[in-house]
């Protein structure tokens, strides 16, 4: 036996470079508390690996990525700081408790961690709002991730200014009534936009201005609502503001092509704008699964 490759002391380089499997990494890190010099070496090599990271060219992410993240964090709970470790000798064996549930959130940082059953239950009682919210976020990853991904593609083409996409050079843009509101949004100095896919086909672009408190939705290639149904737009509040959902008006007369509508009411900071299919005349709260959701910030 010339190779002692099970010796954890050999693994600090692999550790720094993420060449270990998850199991190997956990095993190694478990030994750190007993071998402070091993931890020190691992930390110094980790910092060295950072130099390798710094030698890579930075790539500026699209603006939509930040907008999407800012909206996400507004409704994402943060893990608590780890509890201070009490030396085992000071604690009677019987009082040892399992790790706090927060460890679950901490363990998996994926998007699904945002809507743990606990936060769902605690929110807004058992009202219609809560039911609607549940429905809304049943598939948050699917809806929101695809929204973000599409926004990336769309914005990459040429965002930043309203000139490339003003209602006047957009053939078939909605009603003139909507256009006048749209013009004001496009002209606003803090004009922003994000685009998402609509389930069932087509895209929805949300444009907004925080200073105006106004937003509009532009549908492109979205089929007409089924007979006896209508599209309804919604403001979905962030977790931090109680998660209120309120109607932002109906979107009638959609039939492929490009249609736009300025949302009724005032858009508050960080809301997600969504759309559902509702019975003709609209509903107080969404009654169906949303077909699009666009976070705004």
């Amino acid at each position, binding site marked *: 036996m010339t190779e002692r490759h099970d010796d954890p002391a050999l693994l600090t380089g692999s550790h720094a470079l993420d060449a270990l499997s998850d199991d190997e990494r956990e095993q190694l890190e478990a030994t750190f508390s007993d071998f402070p010099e091993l931890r020190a070496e691992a930390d110094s090599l980790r910092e060295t690996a950072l130099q390798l990271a*710094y030698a890579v060219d930075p790539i500026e992410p699209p603006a939509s990525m930040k907008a999407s993240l800012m909206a996400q964090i507004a409704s994402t709970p943060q893990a608590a700081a780890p509890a201070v470790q009490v030396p085992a000798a000071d604690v009677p064996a019987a009082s040892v408790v399992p790790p706090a549930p927060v460890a679950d959130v901490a363990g998996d940082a994926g998007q699904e961690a945002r809507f743990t059953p606990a936060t769902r239950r605690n929110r807004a009682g058992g009202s219609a709002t809560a039911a609607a919210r549940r429905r809304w976020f049943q598939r948050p990853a699917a809806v929101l991730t695809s929204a973000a991904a599409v926004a990336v*593609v769309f914005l990459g083409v040429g965002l930043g200014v309203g000139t490339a996409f003003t209602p006047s050079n957009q053939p078939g843009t909605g009603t003139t009534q909507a256009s006048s509101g749209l013009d004001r949004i496009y002209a606003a100095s803090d004009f922003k936009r994000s685009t998402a896919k609509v389930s069932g086909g087509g895209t929805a672009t949300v444009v907004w201005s925080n200073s105006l408190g106004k937003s509009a939705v532009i549908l492109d290639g979205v089929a007409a609502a089924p007979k006896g149904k209508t599209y309804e737009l919604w403001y979905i509040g962030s977790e931090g503001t109680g998660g209120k959902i309120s109607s932002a008006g109906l979107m009638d007369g959609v039939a492929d092509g490009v249609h736009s509508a300025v949302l009724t009411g005032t858009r508050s900071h960080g809301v997600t704008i969504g759309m559902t299919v509702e019975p003709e005349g609209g509903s107080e709260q969404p009654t169906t699964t949303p077909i699009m959701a666009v976070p705004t910030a």
Partner: protein
Amino acid sequence: MLALVTRDTESWSSTEPAPASPDDLLARVATGDQAAFSDLYDALSGRVLGLVTRLLRDRAQSEEVAQEVFLEVWQQAARFDRQRGTASSWILTMAHRRAVDRVRASQSSHDRDTKIGIRDFEAGVDDVSESVEIRIEHERVSRALAKLTEFQRQAVQLAYYGGYSHSEMAAHLGVPIGTVKTRLRDGMIRLRDEMGVTS
């Protein structure tokens, strides 16, 4: 209300350089400070996306991973242990690990060319479009890497830029796994000493 909304927006869409260090910003993020998160994002998102894209190549996938990384930063900020490194290191480590996980999970990882990590790194060094600052960093890293043995250098680059696990590398290179571990450790220690990294 309107004034408040406007201020919120300015606090994160501002393009002015952030005066605070990533470490200070991360400490504020741990208290739920969204404006600090915004500044931290501005300071490090280019680095994160650059690194992730180096490993994954696919731009859309890389953006997805970079976004996951920053969401994790938000969620885990309170768990950052300042004693053990810098905020930049913590975040780029997270980014690297997620990129590696993604590379290994993807179908194509089995067909990866073992030379790819090396070739890519060297191509990057000659890129004329890069900033002076980056060129200097390239230069430093290249010089330090040149001090390693060829085997050490190859192992370090395959692992870091190629996302290879040491067992994958052992299989590809036809050497015992213990040899790979030793090359990685000796290579990294040499690199650390050459670059004067202190922890």
